[in-house]
């Protein structure tokens, strides 16, 4: 299929989500369940990734700033800015795309090939709305939260690594981090995270929902979902930076 086929079908899938829910309470429950699965279920990996990202960016910045002419606190500024602008909202989310995207695509793909989606349709349930909408809402809400956690943890870990390695003291690091702080950066990070949350859930739902064939194709859908999500995240990372910065 060409890009336009995929895009058209993707738009139609999104459009099909805009129906009156059969029963609102069931949809709320499903959203809550997905928020736990997507959000709480990803905290572990976010903690690990963030700690290392913060540590690495501090050590590498310190390595590059050898001249005594610049105050050490600049390490804190550079690290915090990179973390808030790029590492937390993009790099962390790329890893989340692998985890959440493959989970959504393989779950829906399995439901498709084992006729569970047909079973929903036969009952009179709007299968796309019931299955996809809660995932998109949950992911679009939870990924920004995960990014906030990631940003705080990365900065915190960067600060302590600076202290331990003697590159920059905790106090200097924080002074630097706050010195060049622009509040819009936080908004920018959240705008990115929300966009990426939507991309991950909707694109991987698309690949899962339209899986055809057998177990092999489920795996293929999951892989394709993750690859396309990652490329789109990078593309929109650039577009948003151009537009908003």
């Amino acid at each position, binding site marked *: 299929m060409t890009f336009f086929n995929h895009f058209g079908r993707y738009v139609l899938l999104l459009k099909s989500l805009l129906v009156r829910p*059969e*029963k609102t309470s*069931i949809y709320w429950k499903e959203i809550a369940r997905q928020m736990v699965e997507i959000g709480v279920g990803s905290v572990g990996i976010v903690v690990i990734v963030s700690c290392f990202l913060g540590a690495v960016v501090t050590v590498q910045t310190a390595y590059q700033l050898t001249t005594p002419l610049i105050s050490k606190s600049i390490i804190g500024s550079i690290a915090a800015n990179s973390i808030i602008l790029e590492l937390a909202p993009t790099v962390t989310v790329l890893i989340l795309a692998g985890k959440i995207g493959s989970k959504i695509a393989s779950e829906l793909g*399995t*439901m498709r090939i*084992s*006729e*569970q989606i*047909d*079973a929903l*349709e*036969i*009952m*009179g*349930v*709007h299968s796309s709305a019931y299955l996809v909408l809660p995932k998109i809402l949950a992911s679009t809400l939870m990924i920004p939260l995960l990014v906030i956690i990631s940003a705080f943890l990365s900065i915190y870990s960067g600060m302590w690594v600076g202290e331990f390695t003697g590159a920059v003291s905790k106090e200097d690091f924080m002074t630097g981090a706050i010195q060049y702080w622009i509040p819009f950066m936080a908004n920018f990070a959240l705008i990115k995270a929300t966009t990426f949350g939507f991309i991950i859930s909707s694109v991987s739902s698309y690949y899962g929902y339209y899986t055809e064939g057998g177990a092999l194709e489920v795996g293929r859908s999951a892989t394709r979902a993750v690859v396309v999500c990652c490329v789109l995240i990078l593309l929109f990372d650039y577009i948003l930076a151009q537009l908003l910065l």
Partner: protein
Amino acid sequence: MIEVQDLNKSFGAKQILKGISATFEAGKCNLIIGASGSGKTVLMKSIVGLIPVNSGHIIYNNDTDFLEIEDSGRKELRKQIGMLFQGSALFDSLSVEKNVVFPLNMFTNMTYKEKMNRVNECLERVNLKDANKLYPNELSGGMKKRVGIARAIVMNPKYLFCDEPNSGLDPQTSIVIDKLIKDITDEYKITTIVNTHDMNSVMEIGDYVLFLYKGEKYWEGHRDEIMNATNQQLNDFIFAGKFFREIKEQNTKRLSDEKNK
């Protein structure tokens, strides 16, 4: 009653259903038989609207042409349809009880107690007790089919569709499932359509049998007429096995003996 008129369906250039017409009556077990790949599943899924067809009419209860009503009307009609899928299609993430209660949660305002009563009633109807809390991956094939049937009948459907209810089951379990489908059909006067290639089922429950051969209707009739049918493809299909062939031979011999007397 469901009436199918001149149904055609192609996938790409390959025509799968070729002008199928049939009448499936209420309170009867209507069987669609044919070899693997003859189009049984495609026909069944076309009748319930899971597969869009190219042309034809599907008329439910003498008035609604399923293909001409819009989406919301279809959803309403589908609440009167129960379907058992070939692989049972139970929701993996839900227990047996939650699977069966699912349509009730979605479409009724019954209290928790009423729902549980109904669920247990249906599970007892299919002879499944003490399995409420099990998950699909803990069930045997036969149990899955029974849960699938319980889920299909929980909303008191007017129409019941079963796609190869016996596939993957041993002969004894197959007969139990067949009997169950037959009893439920009689009990609730449902219009039942069953896809099968199992000759035992045909002989046990086939009130009306439609034989598909490469997407075409080659024969239709009652199970009692099938032994004496003259259609070549039907005979090849039914009497592929030695057992049925011998019965057929004895049958013809008896008939000719009677004639000679």
